[in-house]
């Protein structure tokens, strides 16, 4: 029995799109089967059965956040991706992520922890309660989607390794495997692989920050970051690192990929903020995808992507224009 907690950032019932229907899992499956063959719906370790065994057989379980906005169809959320490990075009990940082997998969936890070690993903997830979180995803490129993730709080995982008192930051690393990730072989990419992201520890411990293993009632497609990814809904999408193999607790701020590459464009914090412009994209508005030929579907961007009430206290007293 799951109890749905209405969060303060949820729109009032009157704001919710009246015809908004949350599709049941069965419909999702039918949708997925009828849509084009999507690269990399993985199998093995994290199977549909495995998810079903955790209570996902009878439709989605609501718990935690739901912005109450129309959910982006699975078809688009799984075919329009930024995952430069597989190429820079939005369609590349869906096309090429099938080349990635996600089983076996393990994660190494190091740094300021009492119990460092490498752990297989099955063991990592053993005994973890999965919950569904419907979050807005706001990309720094000024587009956004609404996605139902399946996951669990970041804190739940980190605690198992017992971070020490000196741990102040956490760094995450994506798999580096050029044989299976063609973007990493690209000669014209200026990214210094592997991709690295990070959070302040109190940010990582915030209840809204989750690790996701699934979406739309299913295990994550490879192009969405299988088998384990971060989802931090109040920050621009690039913070929500995919296909994680390394977690390191640190005393000092990690050197994160985009921040190192272009510090004037991508801050370490990268909190969604309509008042701080980016040199390439205005951040005042966003295009809620899917858009159409007739309308870019522009809506106003909200401070902290609409999660201000929950997360603003994390940044009390900080100048968000300078620490963007």
């Amino acid at each position, binding site marked *: 029995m799951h109890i749905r907690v209405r969060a303060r950032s949820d729109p009032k019932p009157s704001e919710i799109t009246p015809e908004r229907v949350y599709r049941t899992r069965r419909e999702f499956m039918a949708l997925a089967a009828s849509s084009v063959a999507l690269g990399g719906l993985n199998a093995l370790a994290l199977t549909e059965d495995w998810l079903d065994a955790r209570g996902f057989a009878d439709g989605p379980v609501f718990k935690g956040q739901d912005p109450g906005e129309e959910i982006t169809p699975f*078809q688009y959320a799984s075919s329009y991706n930024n995952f430069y490990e597989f190429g820079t075009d939005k369609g590349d990940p869906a096309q090429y992520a099938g080349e990635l082997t996600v089983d076996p998969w393990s994660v190494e936890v190091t740094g300021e922890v009492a119990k460092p070690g490498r752990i297989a993903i099955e063991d990592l997830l053993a005994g973890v309660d999965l919950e569904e979180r419907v979050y807005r995803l706001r990309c720094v490129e000024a587009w956004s989607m609404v996605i139902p993730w399946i996951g669990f709080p970041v804190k739940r995982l980190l605690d198992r390794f017992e971070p020490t008192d000196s741990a102040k930051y956490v760094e995450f690393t994506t798999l580096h495997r050029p044989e299976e990730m063609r973007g990493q072989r690209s000669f*014209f990419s200026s990214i210094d692989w592997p991709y690295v992201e990070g959070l302040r520890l109190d940010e990582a411990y915030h209840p809204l920050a989750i690790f996701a293993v699934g979406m739309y009632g299913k295990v994550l497609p490879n192009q969405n970051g299988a088998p384990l990814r971060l989802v931090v809904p109040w920050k621009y999408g690039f913070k929500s690192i995919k296909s994680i193999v390394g977690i390191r607790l640190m005393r000092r701020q990690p050197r994160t990929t985009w921040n190192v590459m272009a510090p004037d464009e991508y801050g370490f914090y990268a909190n969604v903020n309509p008042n701080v412009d980016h*040199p390439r994209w205005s951040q005042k508005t966003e295009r809620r995808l899917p858009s159409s030929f007739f309308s870019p579907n522009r809506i106003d961007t909200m401070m902290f992507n609409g999660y201000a009430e929950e997360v603003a206290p994390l940044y009390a007293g900080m100048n968000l224009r300078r620490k963007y």
Partner: protein
Amino acid sequence: MLLFAVLASPLGVLAYDVYREVLMPGTVFGADPGEEIVRYMGEWAIRLLMATLAVSPASRLFKRPQWVRFRRMFGLFAFAYAVLHFVGYLGMLAGFDFGAVVDDFAKRPYITVGIAALVMLVPLAATSTRGWQRRLRANWRRLHRLVYVIGVLACIHLWWLSKAGFGEAVLYTAILILLLGERTVRMRVRIAAKAR
């Protein structure tokens, strides 16, 4: 006529794709059809811009001076695609929000150079006829040298809008360097010959 049909064919392909998408939404275009169309037009604009610049060297290389008369058609199509690229941006990305466009022009350098390139294309397209060529005489050649500046701006546009994948920017910059390099070398040779 044939050349017209060939250069217009990308529009035909696009029209057909849009038609299929309208009949069966979600089958041809992805989550962001506007962006796809803007990119498509941008790609064709820069291809035809480079093709325009390549006409004269190609006619010399293959000793076919009659090819030069095709240059106008290439140039006009480059302009047409650039205009459609811009209109697509206005409608499908900016949503005809002119405040946002002004904001983009002022704050986003890749948009600033894109618009500069487009604006420079206007007088070239307007004076592309034989009549104007005659009327402007030597000034016509001088005016149409703007196309080199436009080529450079288009490449800068591409560099500045690329985040991490610079393949296309490298490709078109290499082509531009080749085409402008050929002219520079020829000019040097001519000057040297005169001096002798």
